[in-house]
């Protein structure tokens, strides 16, 4: 938590990609909500894995297979501690957060929900926490209901008790990837539990930026991806409460997830392997472990503090400089938001804006950010989204502002 160790200049140097140039300008990476950059120690540890202990896990009795297995299982324990779960058996490795959510949908929901049940979604959800439920509701007579939002993109909970009637599952993102809104997840979990519903929290945009404590949160499932939190691509996590996971049928079938197979049928393995079919993403799991250690070394509290300060700076500075020409969507108070700045600049289309920004080395994302229902509610087609992380500093925001200004000139 100590501020002294947090120096974005030092941190920046640990990310090799941030040293490169784009179009003769030093890169200014502002798309961490899509995927984060990776510190050198994550990259090198995966290298070392391939060079020194690459072997398939869990079944080899030879030395390097044991080492690889040990690193995979040690990472499981690390994730368990990182999110303060009850047991390492609750940590299931998937390929990304999307698979984790689908696992809940295919295994838990399809075995538990029947015609007439209701799933409540927040209007801030990413497609990955919408489409799996729409798929289910097109198979069965399951109603999908939405928590509305206020004009500044916060959940409108005035009628939450009404909305929760008949609900069996509440799906809510901890932080909106499109607007940066931080949701009152703990409160929502409590409300859901009061009516006997379970709560699945999409933690993709919170685990990289804040402390995560599933015990305190009280949720039933959380899903997140490694690639947004300094880890590699190809690895995600589902956490679920032990007693719930234990009663769920397997999802993907195959090697690793069985205890026994005969020609007549199979017996599923114990948790967590029951849900991990096939060769796991071994190097990726190990990379995620290093990423978590890296974040813990900096301190999740310090990370949040840094991002909040930087967000305050950005809101203030961009506002001062562009006034009404630039709309920053979402909550106005930095306390209510993460480092996601979803922008509309005059009538310059976000795609054009991001193209011009790229010319100055500034990487932002243009589009619907996989949140089309939310965008529609906000009356938007697309925004240009700048999203911050540990390696960003005020100078990055300044370059962003200058580049926005240049775009204004082209599309005057």
């Amino acid at each position, binding site marked *: 938590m100590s501020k002294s160790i947090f120096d974005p200049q030092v941190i920046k140097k640990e990310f090799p990609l941030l040293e490169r140039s784009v179009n003769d300008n030093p890169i200014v990476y502002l798309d961490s909500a899509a995927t984060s950059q990776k510190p050198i120690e994550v990259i090198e540890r995966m290298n070392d894995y391939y060079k020194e202990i690459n072997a398939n896990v869990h079944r080899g009795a030879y030395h390097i297979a044991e080492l690889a297995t040990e690193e995979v299982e040690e990472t499981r324990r690390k994730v368990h501690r990182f999110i303060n779960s009850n047991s390492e058996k609750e940590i299931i490795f998937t390929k990304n957060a999307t698979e984790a959510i689908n696992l809940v949908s295919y295994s838990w929901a399809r075995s538990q929900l029947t015609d007439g049940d209701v799933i409540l979604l927040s209007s801030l959800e990413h497609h990955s926490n919408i489409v799996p439920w729409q798929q289910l509701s097109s198979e069965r007579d399951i109603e999908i209901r939405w928590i509305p939002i206020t004009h500044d993109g916060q959940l409108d909970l005035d009628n939450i008790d009404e909305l929760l009637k008949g609900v069996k599952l509440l799906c809510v993102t901890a932080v909106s990837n499109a607007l940066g809104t931080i949701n009152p997840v703990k409160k929502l979990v409590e409300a859901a539990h009061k009516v006997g519903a379970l709560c699945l929290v999409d933690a993709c945009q919170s685990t990289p930026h804040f402390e995560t404590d599933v015990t305190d949160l009280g949720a039933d499932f959380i899903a997140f991806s490694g690639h947004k939190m300094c880890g590699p691509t190809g690895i995600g996590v589902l956490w679920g409460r032990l007693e719930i996971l234990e009663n769920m049928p397997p999802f993907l079938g195959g090697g690793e997830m069985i205890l026994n197979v005969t020609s007549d049928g199979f017996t599923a393995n114990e948790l967590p392997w029951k849900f991990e079919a096939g060769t796991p993403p071994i190097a990726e799991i190990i990379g995620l472990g290093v990423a978590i250690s890296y974040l813990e070394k900096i301190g999740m509290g310090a990370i949040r503090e840094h991002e909040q300060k930087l967000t305050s700076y950005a809101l203030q500075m961009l506002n001062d400089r562009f006034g009404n020409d630039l709309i920053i969507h979402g909550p106005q108070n930095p306390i209510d938001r993460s480092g996601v700045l979803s922008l509309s600049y005059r009538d310059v289309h976000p*795609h054009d804006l991001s193209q011009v920004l790229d*010319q100055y080395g500034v990487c932002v994302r243009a589009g*619907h950010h996989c949140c089309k229902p939310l965008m529609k509610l906000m009356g938007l087609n*697309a925004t240009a989204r700048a999203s911050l992380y540990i390696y960003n500093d005020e100078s990055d925001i300044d370059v962003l502002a200058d580049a926005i200004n*240049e775009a204004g000139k082209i599309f005057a």
Partner: protein
Amino acid sequence: MTGLEDLYKEVILDHYRSPRNKGELPTPPAIMEEGFNPLCGDDVKVYVILEDKVIKEIRIGGQGCSISQASASMMTESVLGKTLDEAKEVFERFKKMMSSHENDLNSAESSLDETPSSLGDLEALKGVVKYPVRIKCATLGWNTFDQIIDSVEN
């Protein structure tokens, strides 16, 4: 500012600022198809009134970036009054220009030179091939128009 002049040519910006044939047409008699660019959320609606397979009227609805809007606007100019077969032929030439990158991004420059020089304003979109993501923008209106041709022909 270097580099973007290729993309944002004056004629493109002009079509973007003052799109030709923008609006809607009543269906029927018009045929309408809608296209999405899943990458950025843009959507385009193409309305066409045909008489004897000749494009009598065409309108563009929806919203999009300068490239998709300008390309659709230019498309309306290049196909209005043409037969479907003629329009298809323009589309083929346009597609060829746009896909030169797919064969080899690095040799894009050279293959560009081979593009037949009869696309009029549309040739301003040549520069787009250097920006693979924007090709989807430039072809959105065309692909949607193509759906109309398909639906008429089948």
